[in-house]
């Protein structure tokens, strides 16, 4: 008989060590997988994890890909801590992209230096407005935010489709569903020449620090955690759960909207029928991989970004199928969860001792 017995106090070292352990297990299992497929395991792992970031261009691409993931995940993590399950970051991201993109397209010949700051604010507000709907429905009608936020994602992407097929379509684009390219004043400044890494990556770093500060050093951060861990205690303490719901969704929506603005004003440079290849959903994995901690999320976002880049490299170099990216992301999550179980429980062989 194998049983799991809860441990009295999980080791603090292991709580933070588990993600690292999970990465190590993933590497070992990945090596086994590659050799089972008939490829040199070390070379394959090199191609997957090192080759994509072996030059400065690769590094800038890594951070470019990690930026929207990290931004969305930092916002979502606050809600997850407070038991607010915002699954609709993808839609909030799209809404942020739509609102800021609409401004860029409307004033496409503007050279004003205020255009970009206005777009940033508009992106944040767009994401917030979209997240406000689940917040209102939850606080007013007790509607489940998982369902409402998820369904609003589809509404947002269809709305984007309508806009690029109609009002915001490029009048010189042969009726193809795309907006004009944004003017230079509407594009985020690049951090390095010859790269696509833009100033949004720096803002993201700042947001990570801010997120850490809010969660660990402010009253509202404390309230979120208490409401999440023990709703009853929060009630006795007089914390307002509605305030926590609104706060979590506004923060999550605002940051997702900012991520959407960074995508359209950064690497995309126009509005298209699809803005995000699922960043809002992947961010949920990133949030948990990062232990719902902003710094952890930054690391997790970078790691998941690397798994996309690595997946492309092994496709190019070894003709492995795309599924290899998903396999690595899945293994990472699986090993993390497995480690979690072993941190919180101990494996006991034999039958349960009878109480004396």
């Amino acid at each position, binding site marked *: 008989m194998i049983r799991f017995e809860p441990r009295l106090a999980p080791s603090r070292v292991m709580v933070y060590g588990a993600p690292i352990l999970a990465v190590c297990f993933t590497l070992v299992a990945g090596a086994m997988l590659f050799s089972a497929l008939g490829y040199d395991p070390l070379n394959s792992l090199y191609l997957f994890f090192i080759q994509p970031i072996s030059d400065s*261009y690769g590094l800038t*691409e890594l951070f*470019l*890909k990690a930026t929207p993931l990290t931004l969305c995940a930092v916002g979502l993590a606050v809600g997850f801590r407070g038991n607010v399950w915002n699954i609709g970051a993808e839609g909030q991201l799209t809404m942020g992209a739509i609102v800021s993109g609409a401004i860029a397209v409307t004033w496409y010949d503007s050279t004003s230096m205020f255009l970009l700051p206005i777009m940033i604010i508009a992106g944040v507000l767009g994401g917030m407005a979209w997240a406000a709907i689940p917040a209102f429905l939850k606080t007013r009608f007790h509607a489940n935010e998982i369902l409402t936020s998820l369904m609003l994602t589809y509404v947002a992407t*269809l709305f984007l*489709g309508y806009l690029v*097929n*109609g009002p915001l379509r490029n009048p010189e684009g*042969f*009726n*193809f*569903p795309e907006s004009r*390219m944004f003017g230079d004043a509407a594009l985020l400044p690049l951090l390095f020449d*010859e790269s*696509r890494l833009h100033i949004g990556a720096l803002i993201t770093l700042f947001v990570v620090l801010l997120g850490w500060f809010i969660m660990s050093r402010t009253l509202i951060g404390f309230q979120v955690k208490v409401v999440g861990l023990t709703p009853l205690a929060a009630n006795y303490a007089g914390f307002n759960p509605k305030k926590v719901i609104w706060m979590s969704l506004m923060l999550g929506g605002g940051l997702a909207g900012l991520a959407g603005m960074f*995508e359209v004003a*950064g*690497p*995309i*440079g*126009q509005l*298209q*029928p*699809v*803005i995000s*290849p699922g960043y809002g959903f992947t961010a949920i994995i990133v949030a948990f991989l990062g232990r719902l901690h902003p710094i952890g999320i930054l690391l997790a976002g970078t790691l998941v970004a690397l798994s*996309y*880049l690595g997946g*492309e*490299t092994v*496709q*190019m*170099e070894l*003709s492995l*199928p*795309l599924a290899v990216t998903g396999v690595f992301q899945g293994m990472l999550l699986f090993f993390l969860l497995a480690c979690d179980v072993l941190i919180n429980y101990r494996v006991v062989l034999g039958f349960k001792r009878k109480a004396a």
Partner: protein
Amino acid sequence: MGKLKAVLAAATLALGATAAQAEQTKIGFVYVSPIGDAGYTYQHDLGRKAIEEEFGDKIKVSFVESVAEGPDSERVIMNYAKNGYDMVFATSFGYMNPTLKVAKKFPKVAFEHATGYKRAKNVNTYVARFYEGRYLAGLVAGKMTTSNVIGYVAAFPIPEVVRGINAFTRGIREVNKDAQVRVIWTNSWFDPGKEREAADTLIGQGADVLNMHADSPATIQAAADAGVYAIGYNSDLSKFGPKAQLTSTVTNWAPYYVKRVTEVLEGKWEGNQDTWDGLKEGMVEMAPFNDAVPQDVRDLVEKAKQDIIAGTLHPFAGPINDNEGKERVAAGTTMTDGDLLGFNWYVEGVVGKLPN
């Protein structure tokens, strides 16, 4: 130092064993969806296999599948160019601007972009005259329908798709003045669930022949289950409904790919070229007819095919009315390729309004 040299020498020797590879011309393919076993990307992959067969060791071919249109595609194309690839085939419309951005930075790399309209001195575009095959399919559908309701499952209301619907309808009306075409949009290139629903709805509305512009065989399967006819697209889809599929408009990219790769190998490749090949060049083909198609229909289609190849028949030769009765193309004139590129109205015979 001496040791380092020795190591380097050994490494060079090891590489020298594959010296032939260094001489190889490297060609990369970027695919928008999984290769699968039928459909748009599958046909491009057949083209890739054709050049591998044709040129053998002279070339090294690699591909990346399911690359999202937008920032991800720019990175994949960039990585090909950066890693010494000589030629890149970007096979989806949404790769247009990313391809041009990378092409600017790598003037010596040859880029081929499918279905786009922007070119440069090292970027060519190519597209098949699918509409010629659609017209022939229309002749078959017009003859085979008894309910005079014909359904069309379509992806996005972009000119390429509208052109196909119109050519198909022109073919139908050529042989059957009473038949009407009903269109349902799925707003996705690949969504078997939505395509199936759309097909079932059209069958429910009385359609006894279906056509489709989408990437999955769901429409053929729906027709097979309901016992009605359907026409395939991209690939021969008869294995998904041997009795249902009347024929299919098949794209064959192989001759074009072989031609362009030959040019690169011989140093004769040039940019700024636009290719629209059709039945004549073999880029568009018709799949074998279903046994249910009578001989007189086969003869009719064959005759029209030869006329199109000879240039005496054009699916969009005037007079053409739109579906609101307004004359759009006068008798004696034919729509130019430029007109076809921006098609945004339905011809007579299509029911409904184009979404805008």
